[in-house]
Every structure is written in structure tokens, then in C-alpha cells.
């Protein structure tokens, strides 16, 4: 076996408590990252990489794909869950854009905590908070994890 960065060790339901905080993370985004995500996701909308175009449609600057923010934020949950396949539900509301300047890029600060535990189904509902530039960029961000 090769040494893995994620062990695959999934939290045991009986040991998970409501209010438990997951390890937080700050995700740095720059233009190169957005181009990479545009290619991977096939969402090539110019507002995500072309500053002149973004400003011409009234945006303050290039903005990150909402789906990039959603997809990168949930790594906080998959790291904790030990296995990305344990995330059985995940939904968000896109409340504010992540504005990505040429010089500094942007930081997305992600934290998460356990809101509910269903001992019958062995599932935990985790609420995520994602902020950039002091504003909440995701709302109603909830992930359901299948525990052991």
C-alpha cells in the first residue's frame, strides 16, 4: 500500500457530537486557479477569467465560479469524513461573489460544524461557513456525511 494523505478513517457515529468543529481551512484563489477550474468544469464564462469583460458587465472584477467555491469549500468536510464518497448530500446558496483581483487573488475562509447527528441512519449534518473579503459567500451550506 502506498502512503495516503487521507487515511480513509471515517468518524464513528457514537463519537460525533453536535457542535463539534471541523478543522478550518483558508483557500487561496488566483486567476490561474480559475482558469484551471474553467477547464476542468467546462464553465468557460469570461466573467471568471477576463477582467475587462467582467467589468464591462458591471462586476467589480473577475469573480470565482460559484461552483468552484462550493467544490473547494467542501474539502473541509471530506478531509474530516476521511472519504469524499461519504458526502451523500451537499447543497449551498450563492450569496455573494468571490472577487479575485489580479494582484492579490482572494482568500476563502471555510469553517464547519456538526449541526445534527442521526444515530439511526448514522449520518451527520455539517454546516459550512465560507467568507471572502469579510462577506459570507455561501448561505444555507449543508453537507450530510455517512458515518461508520
Amino acid at each position, binding site marked *: *500500500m*502506498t502512503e*495516503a*494523505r*487521507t487515511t*480513509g478513517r471515517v468518524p464513528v457515529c457514537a463519537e460525533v457530537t453536535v457542535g463539534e468543529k471541523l478543522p478550518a481551512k483558508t*483557500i487561496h484563489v488566483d486567476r490561474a*486557479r480559475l482558469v*484551471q*477550474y474553467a*477547464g*476542468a*468544469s*467546462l*464553465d468557460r464564462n469570461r466573467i471568471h477569467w477576463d477582467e475587462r469583460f467582467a467589468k464591462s*458587465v458591471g462586476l467589480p472584477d473577475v469573480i470565482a465560479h*460559484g*461552483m*468552484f467555491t*462550493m*467544490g*473547494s469549500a*467542501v*474539502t473541509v468536510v*471530506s*478531509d474530516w469524513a476521511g*472519504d*469524499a*464518497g461519504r*458526502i*451523500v*448530500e*451537499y*447543497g*449551498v*446558496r*450563492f450569496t455573494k461573489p468571490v472577487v479575485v483581483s489580479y494582484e492579490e487573488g482572494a482568500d476563502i475562509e471555510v469553517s464547519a460544524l456538526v449541526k445534527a447527528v442521526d444515530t439511526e441512519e448514522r449520518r451527520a449534518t455539517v454546516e459550512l461557513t465560507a467568507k471572502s473579503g469579510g462577506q459570507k459567500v455561501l448561505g*444555507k451550506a449543508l*453537507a450530510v456525511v455517512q458515518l461508520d
Partner: protein
Amino acid sequence: MPVNADFQGRTYPPTKPYGVSAAKIREFADAVGSTDPVHVDAEVARARGYADVIAPPTFAVLIAQQCDRQLITDPEAGIDFSRVVHGEEKFVHHRPLTAGDSIVGTLHVDGVREAGGHAMVTTRSELATATGEPVCTATSTLVIRGGE
């Protein structure tokens, strides 16, 4: 209203099969920063009980987007794509998307409503294997900004 309200309740025919590849999973996982080896190492994935490498939780957007495109590009729907903003997204995974899957998506238009001068369209893409095994339900809310 900038969207044809008669579209509520409409269902589109299933899309052409989308082949989930290990290469696209790796590319997508890299782009969102999901470092779980289950996305790239088939041996790790099999040890966790999966048939092959599995996709990150938001990968399904690639297929759901193809489904949504049917509605957005339907001239009768009257949607101006340049005014579309992503409002909400949710995935319910019946099992993880796995390399080697061939997935068809069926688009349902669950809701068309107006709020604050904007039109809100809620779509649901039911993703399943060609043999009908349900894999993921993806729900999107698209906001079509009203004109001035």
C-alpha cells in the same frame, strides 16, 4: 416575466450518455483541491469498497449543466443566458459517480416563479446509469435578472 411560466412541470428527454473517466475525475479533483487519494488511486478506491476511483461531490455539475443547457437554449423558454446567475445548487448522491460510469440525465423543470423583478427557475437533473440505476439528483436554482 422573462421566462415562459408554461415550462413549469416540463421534462426533457434523457441526454446522451456521459462517460465518467478517471482522467476527468483527476482533473476536477485537482481544480477544487480535493486531495483524497480516492479520486486518483484505484487501489485506494477499491479498498474502500468502490469499483474504481470516485468523483468529488460537486463533479456531477458537469452532467447537470448539460441537462440545464437544454432548457437555457430552448428558444420557447425565453431565457436570456447573459442574465443568468447561479442561485442555488444541491446534490443528493445515491452513490458516488465512479470512473467507467455511463450516465444519462433527465431534466425536470420543477419551478418557474418571479421574485423581486427576477425570474427564478428551479431545475432537477436525475442522473442514472443507462440501465436505470439512480446515481445523483442535482437541483439548481437559476436566477434570470430582470431588465431595467
